[in-house]
C-alpha cells in the first residue's frame, strides 16, 4: 500500500516497543485514595464546582458545571466523599482550583446515567450528550468536542478524519485502544458521522502499527469508513499535517480544519463519544501509557481522572534509577511536570519518566545556519530566523516571518545541532505578537 504523508518533519526513534505489546490494565483504586480532579481540564473557561466539602458523590456524578459554550462539565471519577474544594498543584505546575475526593472503594455508579440509541436521537441531542459527558479531544489538546462538532452554518464539512496516528514516540495508548476495542471506536465514528452529516470518514494510522491497520481495515469494512496508512514521520498526527496527508488539502494559514471541510477527532475521542451516547458514561477514565527509561515496567493503563501520576507509576513497578524528568504526554510536545503529585487529567495520554542522564542539558550555542530546522518544519517557516529576531526583541520582524503559523511540534528543536530551544523562542514570539495585537 502506498503510504501517505506530508512535507517536512522527521523521524525520531519511536521507543514504542516497550509498551506496544502490553494489553491495557486497569490502574487500581483503593479505598481511601485521594482523587484530585482539576476544574480546568479542557481548553476554554474552567468549570465551576457545584459540590462542597463533605458532600458524598457517586461515580459519574457532575461535580462542576461548565461556564460558557467553550467549556464542559467535570464528573466524579469514583464514589466517595468530597474532602476539599481548593487550589491544588495542577498540570501546569501552578495551583489551580480542584475538587478532592476520597474514594470509598465501592465505585458506585450514579443511577441517573443512562444510554440511548443514537439512531433515535437528533444531531443536537447527540451533541448535548457529548457535552454533558464532558468529552474533550483525547489526543492531548483537550478541546471540547461538542464545539468542534458545531461548525458555523457556512462551513461545509465533508470529511471526518480520525486521528489514530500517535506519532509521538513512546506513546502506545491509542494503538492499544484500536487493537482492543475497535468496535467502540467505530461506534463513535458512526455517531460523529451522523452529527456532522458527512459521508466520508478516514482513520489515519501510521505504518509502524501494521496490526492496528489490519484490524481496523477489517473492522471498518462495509461501514463507510476508510483506513489510511501513513508514513512514519513526525508530526504526522498534527491536525493540519494529517489532513494534508489524507486529503491533500491545506488548512488555510490562521484557519481551522473546518475551513477546508474537515473535522479531526482522535480515535480515543470517538471511543469516548460512543461510551457517552450509547451507555451514558461520562469521561472519567482514559487510556494512558506509562513508559520511559526510569520506569520499571512500562504499561498501558486505564486510569481514572484525578489519580496522581505517582499512583500510576507505582502500579508500573515504580521509578528506577535517578529520576530526572517527568513528562505528561509525549516527549515531543508533552509538558514536564513539577512532581508526581500532579493529578492525571483528561489530556494525560502518557506519563514518561526520564532518568537524570536523559535530560538534555547541553547549553545553547550560536546558530550555525545549517538549515535543518527549515527542512524539518512542517509549517514551512524559518524557525532559526524567527528565534534570532525574537532574541533581539524584534517582534514585528518575527511576525513578518510567519511566527504565528508555528504549530509547536518541536521538530526544529529536535534536530538543531546548536541545541537552541527554538520552540521556546517561537512561543515567546507568539505570546508577544498576541499581546501586541490585543493592545492595538
Amino acid at each position: 500500500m502506498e503510504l501517505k504523508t506530508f512535507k517536512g518533519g522527521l523521524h525520531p526513534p519511536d521507543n514504542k516497543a516497550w509498551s506496544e505489546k502490553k494489553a491495557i490494565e486497569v490502574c487500581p483504586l483503593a479505598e481511601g485514595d485521594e482523587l484530585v480532579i482539576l476544574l480546568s481540564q479542557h481548553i476554554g473557561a474552567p468549570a465551576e464546582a457545584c459540590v462542597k466539602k463533605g458532600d458524598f458523590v457517586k461515580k459519574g456524578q457532575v461535580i462542576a458545571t461548565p461556564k460558557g459554550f467553550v467549556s464542559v462539565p467535570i464528573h466524579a471519577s469514583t464514589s466517595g466523599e468530597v474532602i476539599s474544594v481548593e487550589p491544588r498543584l495542577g498540570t501546569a505546575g501552578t495551583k489551580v482550583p480542584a475538587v478532592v475526593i476520597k474514594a470509598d472503594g465501592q465505585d458506585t455508579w450514579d443511577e441517573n446515567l443512562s444510554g440511548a440509541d443514537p439512531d433515535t436521537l437528533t444531531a443536537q441531542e447527540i451533541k448535548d450528550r457529548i457535552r454533558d459527558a464532558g468529552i474533550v479531544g483525547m489526543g492531548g489538546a483537550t478541546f471540547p468536542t461538542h464545539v468542534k462538532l458545531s461548525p458555523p452554518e457556512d462551513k461545509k464539512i465533508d470529511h471526518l478524519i480520525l486521528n489514530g496516528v500517535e506519532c509521538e514516540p513512546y506513546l502506545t495508548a491509542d494503538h492499544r485502544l484500536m487493537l482492543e476495542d475497535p468496535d467502540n471506536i467505530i461506534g463513535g465514528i458512526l455517531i460523529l458521522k451522523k452529527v456532522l452529516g458527512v459521508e466520508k470518514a478516514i482513520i489515519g494510522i501510521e505504518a509502524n502499527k501494521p496490526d492496528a491497520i489490519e484490524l481496523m481495515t477489517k473492522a471498518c469494512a462495509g461501514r463507510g469508513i476508510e483506513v489510511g496508512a501513513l508514513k512514519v514521520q513526525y508530526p504526522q498526527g498534527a491536525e493540519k499535517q494529517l489532513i494534508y496527508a489524507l486529503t491533500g488539502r491545506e488548512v488555510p494559514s490562521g484557519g481551522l480544519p473546518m475551513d477546508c471541510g474537515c473535522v479531526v477527532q482522535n480515535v480515543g475521542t470517538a471511543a469516548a463519544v460512543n461510551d457517552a451516547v450509547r451507555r451514558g458514561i461520562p469521561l472519567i477514565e482514559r487510556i494512558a501509557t506509562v513508559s520511559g527509561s526510569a520506569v520499571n515496567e512500562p504499561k498501558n493503563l486505564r486510569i481514572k481522572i484525578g489519580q496522581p501520576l505517582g499512583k500510576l507509576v507505582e502500579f508500573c513497578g515504580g521509578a528506577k534509577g535517578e529520576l530526572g524528568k517527568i513528562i505528561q504526554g509525549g516527549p515531543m510536545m508533552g509538558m514536564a511536570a513539577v512532581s508526581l503529585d500532579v493529578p492525571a487529567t483528561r489530556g494525560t495520554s502518557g506519563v514518561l519518566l526520564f532518568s537524570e542522564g536523559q535530560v538534555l542539558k547541553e547549553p545553547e550555542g550560536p546558530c550555525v545556519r545549517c538549515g535543518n530546522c527549515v527542512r524539518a518544519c512542517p509549517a514551512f517557516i524559518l524557525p532559526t530566523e524567527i528565534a534570532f529576531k525574537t532574541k533581539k526583541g524584534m517582534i514585528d520582524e518575527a511576525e513578518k516571518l510567519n511566527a504565528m503559523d508555528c504549530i509547536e511540534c518541536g521538530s526544529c528543536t529536535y534536530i538543531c545541532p546548536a541545541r537552541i530551544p527554538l520552540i521556546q523562542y517561537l512561543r515567546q514570539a507568539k505570546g508577544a505578537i498576541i499581546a501586541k495585537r490585543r493592545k492595538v
Partner: protein
Amino acid sequence: MDKTLYISSSPHVHEGGTTAKAMRDVIYALLPCVALWIYSFGIIKPSVVMALCIIGCMASEAAWEKVRGLPITIGDGSAAMTGILLALNMPPNSPWWMALLGGVAAIVIGKQVFGGLGYNPFNPALIGRTVLLISFPVQMTTWMMPRTHEITSATPLSDVKIAVGLTGNIPDEIKAQLGSVLFGGFGGQLGVVSGFALIAGGCYLIYRKVITWHIPVSFIGSAFVLSAIFWAVNSSKYPSPVFHLFTGGLMLGAFFMATDWVTTPITPKGMLIFGAGCGILTILIRLFGGYPEGVAFSILLMNSATPIIDRLTMPKKFGLVTQKG
C-alpha cells in the same frame, strides 16, 4: 519526593547531533584528500603548511576569545576545519609565515570580528586565501608538480589562460594533456590530485546529513552546463567541461566550501540558487576574467548575496495554497 526535577520546554528528546560532531564529520571527510595531498607533494613541506594553517587558526581563535573573556571554543573543531581548508587552498610549498598569516587572517578578519562562529558573512578559509593571494601573488601562484615536486608557476588553468590570451587558441600540446587531468600530473591546487577523494568525502557528508545535495549538485551542474556550452561553441578556445570540473578548486569548493553552513542560504531553494551562482561565476571568471581560478571569488561573491537570497526564497508557509477540491 524531595528531589528537585528538571523542567524544560518540549521536545524532551533530541536527535543527538551537535555542532562539534558535524565539524568533526567534515574533518573526517577531508582526511583522505589531506592524506593524498600530503603524499603527492612530498610529505614534509605540505605537512608543515597544513600544521601551521591549523595552528594559526586555532591559536588566533583561542587568543582572541581569551582577550575578550569569552569561553574558548577551539574544541568545536570549526577553527581546525578552517585551517585544513585553508591549507588545501595554498601551494604546498608556501613559506611557513604565509601559512600562519593566512590562518590568523581567516579567523580574525573572516570570523571573530563578526562575533565568532555563526555570525561571519564570508567563508573564513576563503577570506584567508584571498587575502594571501592579493598580498603575495607570486608565492600564492608558485605551485609544485605532484610526485616530481618540481617547482612551477604553471597550473592547467593558467596554462590555458596564458595560451588563449596569446594566441586565442589552446595549443595542441596542452590540449593533449587535458585529457589526463583526471589522473594528475599537473601542478596546482588540490582538485588535480584528489578529485575523487573529494567526491568521496562529499558523499560521506551527504550520507551523514551534514550537508545536503543541493549546493554541490547545482554548483557542479551549472559549471558543467555552462562550460559545455562554450566548449560546444568553440572547442579550440574553450577547454572541456570535464577539464573544468577536475582542475583548480572546483570540487573542493563545491563539496566543502560552498556548503559551509554559516555563510550559505538556509532554504533549499536558496541553496540551489547559491550553487548555480557559484558555478556560473566560476566559469565566467575562469574563461573571461583576469584570474585563472574563480572558485574562491565566486563563493565569496555568492556569500555576500546569501542574506538577499535567503530573503527572496523564504518558503511559502503552510496553508497559503489555493483550495483544491
